[in-house]
C-alpha cells in the first residue's frame, strides 16, 4: 500500500454521561472504541454499520469536529489528533466533509455564491474576479446552472442542495473528503445522480473518500474497501468484493442477508437477528455481537483480545470465537480444531 493519506490508530471517542443531582459523570458512551484504519490516496473506504454504531462520530473525529479521547489520527503525514481549530485551518483545504442533510449544513441566509466563495476567501485564493469565475466553474462541475449562484439553499431540492454541498467541499481541491451519509436522504433516482458525480470527481481529482453509510449496496458500489462497524469497533475490513462475496464475520453476514434486493426471489435465505444494537453506554464486556446472538462462547470473550486479525491477504476480521465459523476461528486463533 502507498503511504496512506489518512491513518487512524486505536482511536477512541468517549462521551461523558452526566446524571444525578450534581450532573456528575456517571458513565461514558463509548461511541468509537479502538478503531484503526488507513486510506490510500485516490481510494474510497466505505464504512457501514447501523445507527448508533459510531460511524458518524468516527467521521467527525477524523475531521476534528469531535475530540478524540485516545489514539491518533494522521492526515497527510501529520498527526492531527490534538490540532486545534487554528492549527486545522490550513489543513481544511485538503480535508473536507459532506454531510447527510444539506439543509442543515448550508447557511440558509447566504446565497449559493457566498457559500461557495467563503472557503476561497478564507484561504486567500485569487481575487474577486477569479473567485467569481471559480464559483461558476464549480456550479457547472456539479451540474447546476450558473443562475443558481444568486439563489438561496431553500430554493433547491434535496439533490440540488447536496450538489451545492459537494461543490463547497471540492472548492479548494481537497485530498480527502469524509462523506457522512451523503445520499441517504435522497430519492432513488437522485441518489444515483449524486453517486455518479462523486465517482467522476474522484477520477478527475484523485480524491480519497471515507464514505459512511448504512446502505450496503450503495457502499459496495462506490468503495474500494469496506469496513463494517458494530458498537464502536470495526469487526471486519477487506476489499469490497471480498466483504460482499466472502464475508467472515457473523454480523457482516447478517447485514448482507438483510438487504432487500429489487428482484423477486422468494427462496432467499434470511438470517434474522433478534433484538437491537446494544447501547454504547453500557456495552457488553465481551463480544458485543456474541452477546446479542447469545452465543455459547460469549463468556470466553470477556477480557479477551478481539482485535482485527488478517485472515486472508487484506481481509481483516475481529478475532471473536462467537462470530466466526469454527474453521475461520481455528485459522485466526491457531486453535487446534477439536474433534467432537
Amino acid at each position, binding site marked *: 500500500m502507498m503511504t496512506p493519506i489518512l491513518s487512524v490508530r486505536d482511536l477512541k471517542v468517549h462521551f461523558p454521561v452526566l446524571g444525578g443531582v450534581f450532573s456528575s459523570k456517571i458513565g461514558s458512551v463509548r461511541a468509537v472504541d479502538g478503531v484503526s484504519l488507513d486510506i490510500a490516496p485516490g481510494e474510497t473506504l466505505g464504512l457501514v454499520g447501523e445507527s448508533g454504531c459510531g460511524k458518524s462520530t468516527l467521521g467527525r473525529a477524523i475531521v476534528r469536529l469531535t475530540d478524540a479521547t485516545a489514539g491518533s489520527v494522521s492526515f497527510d503525514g501529520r498527526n492531527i489528533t490534538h490540532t486545534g481549530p487554528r492549527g486545522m485551518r490550513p489543513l481544511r483545504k485538503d480535508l473536507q466533509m459532506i454531510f447527510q442533510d444539506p439543509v442543515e449544513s448550508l447557511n440558509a441566509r447566504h446565497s449559493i455564491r457566498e457559500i461557495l466563495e467563503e472557503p476561497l476567501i478564507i484561504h486567500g485564493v485569487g481575487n474577486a474576479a477569479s473567485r467569481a469565475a471559480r464559483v461558476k466553474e464549480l456550479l457547472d462541475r456539479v451540474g447546476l446552472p450558473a443562475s443558481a449562484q444568486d439563489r438561496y439553499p431553500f430554493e433547491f431540492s434535496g439533490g440540488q442542495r447536496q450538489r451545492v454541498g459537494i461543490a463547497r467541499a471540492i472548492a479548494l481541491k481537497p485530498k480527502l473528503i469524509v462523506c457522512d451519509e451523503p445520499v441517504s436522504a435522497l430519492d432513488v433516482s437522485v441518489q444515483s445522480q449524486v453517486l455518479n458525480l462523486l465517482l467522476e470527481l474522484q477520477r478527475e481529482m484523485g480524491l480519497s473518500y471515507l464514505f459512511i453509510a448504512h446502505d450496503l449496496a450503495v457502499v459496495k458500489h462506490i468503495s474500494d474497501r469496506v469496513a463494517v462497524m458494530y458498537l464502536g469497533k470495526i469487526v471486519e475490513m477487506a476489499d469490497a468484493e471480498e466483504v460482499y462475496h466472502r464475508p467472515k464475520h457473523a454480523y457482516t453476514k447478517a447485514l448482507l442477508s438483510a438487504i432487500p*434486493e429489487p428482484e*423477486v426471489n422468494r427462496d432467499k435465505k434470511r438470517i434474522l437477528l433478534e433484538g437491537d444494537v446494544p447501547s454504547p453506554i453500557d456495552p457488553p464486556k465481551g463480544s458485543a455481537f456474541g452477546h446479542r446472538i447469545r452465543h455459547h462462547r460469549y463468556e470466553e470473550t470477556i477480557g479477551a483480545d478481539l482485535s482485527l486479525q488478517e485472515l486472508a491477504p487484506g481481509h481483516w476480521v475481529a478475532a471473536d470465537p462467537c462470530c466466526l465459523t469454527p474453521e475461520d476461528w481455528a485459522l485466526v486463533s491457531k486453535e487446534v480444531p477439536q474433534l467432537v
Partner: protein
Amino acid sequence: MSEPLLQVRELITAFDTEAGLVRAVDQVSFEVAKGQTLGIVGESGCGKSVTAMSLIGLLPQPMGKILQGEVLFKGRDLTRLKNSEMRKIRGNEIGVIFQEPMTALNPVHRIGKQIAECFLLHKKVSKKKAWESAIEMLRLVKIPAPELRAMDYPHQLSGGMRQRVVIAMALACRPDLVIADEPTTALDVTVQAQILDLIKRLQGEMGMAVMLITHDLGVIAETCDEVVVMYAGRVVERAPAAELFARPLHAYTRGLLASIPRMDTPRKSILPVIPGMVAALRDFVPGCRFCQRMGRDGATLRERPPFIQVAPGHWVEACPICYAATEL
C-alpha cells in the same frame, strides 16, 4: 381474482394552496384483493402517502379535498362516510401503521393502555379483558416479557420495539386491511428485516390484506404480490410483482430499477440515471409527466396517455414515447 376487498376508482385528491387547487393524486385506480399485499412505490411527492391518507379520511384539513372518485371497501364508499362513521372503521376494520412510531404513540400513556384502548373503543369489552388482550398482542408481535413491557412508556423502547407496538395496535382488532406507510424506513436494515418478517407472518396467521407504501423497490420485491408504480400523482404502471421486476414496461419504472446499485453492479461504474427531477405540483402538465421530466415538448405533454392492459394484470400508462411497446 376474487372479489376485491378495496377498490379505488379514479381518485382525485387536491390541496387548496395559494396557487389554487393542485392535484396531488390525479385519477388513481387500483384494487387490493383479500389477503394479498399490494405495494405502492414512488419517489417523494408522487402522491403515494396522500393516496393512503385519502382512503382513511386523514387528509390534512381544511386544505385536503377529495374531488372525485370512489373508495369501495367491502362494498361501501369510504369517501361518503361521515367522520364518526370513518372512526368506526379506522383502527377496527382498517389498521394503519405509520413511518414514525414515536408520532403514532402517545408519549404520556403506557403502551399497554394504548393497545387496550383499541379494544375498549371498538370491541365493547371490560377494562380487564382489554388489558389482557393488549398483552396478548404484545406477545404476538414478539415483545419479550409482555406483562412487564405493557407498563412501559414509548420512550423506554427502541425504534424497532416501538414499531412492533404500533403494529400490535394496528392489528389489535383483526382488521381486514392494514395500510402501512413506509413502516420500516426509519429503521436499521437488520431491524427492518425483523419487522417485514413479522408483518408477513401475522398476515399469514390472520389473513389480512396489506397495502404497503414505500420508496424502496427492494422492500416491494420481497413482500408484495402486486405493485403500483406512481409518478407525479398518477399510476404509470401496475403489475404482479414478479412480472414488474422481470418485465418493467414504463420508462420511469425501467429507469428507477436501473439506477439502483445492486450487489452485482460493476463496482465504481457510472450508474444509469433518470435526468432532472419531478416538476413542482402546480407545474404538472396534463399529458405525460415523465416526458415533462425528460424535457421533451410536443404532443405527449398535452394529452393524458391512456392506461392500458398489455398482459394479464399488467397495466401501463401508454405514452407513445415512455411506453416501450416494441419490447413486447
